[in-house]
């Protein structure tokens, strides 16, 4: 029977495994835990022998709240989960609801969704790169990454008026078309970003200090990844070529030409290289999406779900009724259950929606990638130094908004 250490301030129970060990509390206010993650580390000297994450500091009951909101209004809730890549979260919820509704989105809507999601992926990876480098003492990449990310946020602002929580992808399509003059922001970004990324890479890839801190640290094998449910850059960093965009394509990802970056080592450095390569692949997708953007409607023409255009309201009585019903009552979704999964920046992002035929979800659940990825932390940290824990947390790329929901 392991001895239980009672943390007096918060009543958290921690099971000690060693005899002469020291229990160190890290977080929830520690800057390198990326938000409000708290880690209870059991140390033998400077070596970690046991580690347990304590989460829930950001728990706001979004899944419960979702059961009381109309389907359209739940979209705004999903932005606030993984706030680093809000578009991806909108998309996965939208796909689950569209699966229940059996709704098809026209090609232009699909392409615009892909465009937004890939921009989000780059923004998310840039934040990861900047902050994880900052954790290990490299200050400059942080500023350079955020400089690049600003350009992406400006594009979201131009699209939706909001920088971080666009809620622009909704069941039925998007809230609006691409704004006029969007190419004035996007085209220079596509042109300049590879150079900017090379510049940031140049600070780290061959940097001896960076390599010393990351190579051979936090190793996981593919088998462990699968058993623990780790996905995304972690499983690809261990050598499994699995990307939901390729294996189970959604939103027309099968039309794009891109590669799945894979690394064999499974350590922090491998995940770092995978994410860097992913940003370049995402940029390829963005370019293809922008160049091949089809003309036509971006929304489904199912008036039971998508509101009619403003001009129609002046001439058509039916449109006015639809408009009124949609914004007061919302739409009803046929009873059943659906699970949709996409490849988010952090791994498999899933959404499970149960409908009872009313205008609100009976159950709304997100499968947060960081929540499952956090399970690998113990595997990666035990036997390593406490300083490596910081590098490992950075490489898992957690977002606490998504973990705690």
């Amino acid at each position: 029977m392991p001895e239980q250490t009672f943390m007096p301030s918060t009543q958290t129970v921690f099971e000690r495994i060693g005899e002469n060990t020291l229990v160190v509390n890290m977080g929830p206010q520690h800057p390198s835990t990326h938000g409000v993650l708290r880690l209870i580390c059991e140390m033998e000297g400077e070596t970690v022998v046991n580690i347990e994450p304590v989460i829930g500091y950001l728990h706001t009951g979004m899944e419960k709240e979702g059961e009381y909101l109309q389907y359209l209004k739940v979209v705004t809730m999903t932005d606030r989960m993984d706030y680093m890549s809000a578009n991806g979260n909108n998309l996965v919820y939208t796909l689950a609801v569209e699966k229940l509704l059996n709704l098809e989105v026209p090609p232009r809507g699909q392409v615009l969704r892909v465009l937004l999601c890939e921009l989000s992926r780059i923004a998310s990876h840039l934040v990861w790169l900047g902050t994880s480098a900052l954790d290990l003492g490299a200050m400059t990449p942080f500023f350079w990454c955020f400089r690049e990310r600003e350009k992406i946020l400006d594009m979201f602002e131009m699209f939706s008026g909001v920088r971080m929580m666009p809620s622009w992808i909704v069941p039925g399509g998007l809230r609006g078309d691409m704004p006029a003059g969007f190419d004035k922001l996007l085209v220079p970004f596509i042109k300049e970003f590879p150079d900017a990324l090379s510049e940031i890479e140049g600070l780290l890839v061959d940097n001896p200090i960076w390599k010393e801190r990351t190579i051979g640290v936090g190793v996981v094998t593919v088998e462990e990844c699968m058993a623990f449910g780790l996905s995304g850059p972690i499983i690809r960093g261990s050598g499994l070529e699995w990307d939901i965009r390729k294996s189970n394509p959604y939103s027309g990802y099968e039309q794009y030409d891109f590669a799945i970056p894979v690394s064999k080592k499974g350590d922090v450095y491998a995940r770092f290289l995978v994410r860097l390569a992913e940003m370049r692949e995402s940029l390829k997708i963005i370019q293809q999406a922008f160049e091949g953007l089809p003309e036509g409607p971006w929304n489904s023409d199912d008036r039971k779900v998508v509101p009619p255009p403003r001009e129609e309201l002046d001439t058509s009585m039916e449109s006015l009724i639809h408009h009124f019903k949609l914004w007061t009552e919302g739409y009803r979704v046929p009873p059943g259950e659906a699970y949709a999964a996409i490849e988010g920046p952090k791994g498999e992002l899933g959404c499970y929606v149960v409908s009872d035929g009313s205008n609100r979800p009976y159950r709304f659940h997100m499968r947060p990638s960081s929540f499952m990825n956090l399970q690998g932390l113990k595997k990666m940290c035990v036997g390593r130094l406490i300083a490596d824990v910081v590098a490992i947390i950075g490489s898992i790329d957690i977002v606490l908004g998504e973990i705690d929901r």
Partner: protein
Amino acid sequence: MPNPVVQGERLEVVLLRESLPDAILKVKEFREDTFICVRRDRIREVAEFLRDHPDLEYRYFSECTCVDYSKWEHERDLSERFEVIYNLYSMKYFSRIFLKVGADDGLPIPSLIPVFPGAEFPEREVWDLYGVVFEGHPRLRRFLLPDDWVGHPLRKDVPLGGEDIPFDQDTKGPAIEDLQRPHAGESFDGVTGTEDIGGR
């Protein structure tokens, strides 16, 4: 790659019917997803079978979650109050399968941790939010909620809001007073699924 299908039925279902016929209660196909309802005491066996069968290789544990069906008015797959849904993924066919297990207060489910160690976090979350007990889970303690929390908030009989607020416990405060008002917000008892209109 498409899901493996043999004579109009998923390969997983065919193989499970052959090897563990008494463990399966029902198979449901809905919107291209396959849900297999499994008897509570056989869930470990079924998960192990799916994981180890050389033709299936369901070795990726995606997640598990739970639904409280106590206010459900349509046809059900299982008779128990809660349904725990395990979500497994195969790297062989890139296919997904859902295992459903029924649970109730006093009817624990055997934990899947011996089969998939990754079940630890999601099962703990399900216990935390729904109170479904997993037999053999080493750490069924508060996870997302504070350590001194009482109750399981995602159950349908718990209203949205309305819980006691610590600084005015049991005496006064918006939460208590709201409960006594006639239109205390639509968030109280029995609103999901009714005919009433409106947002919040």
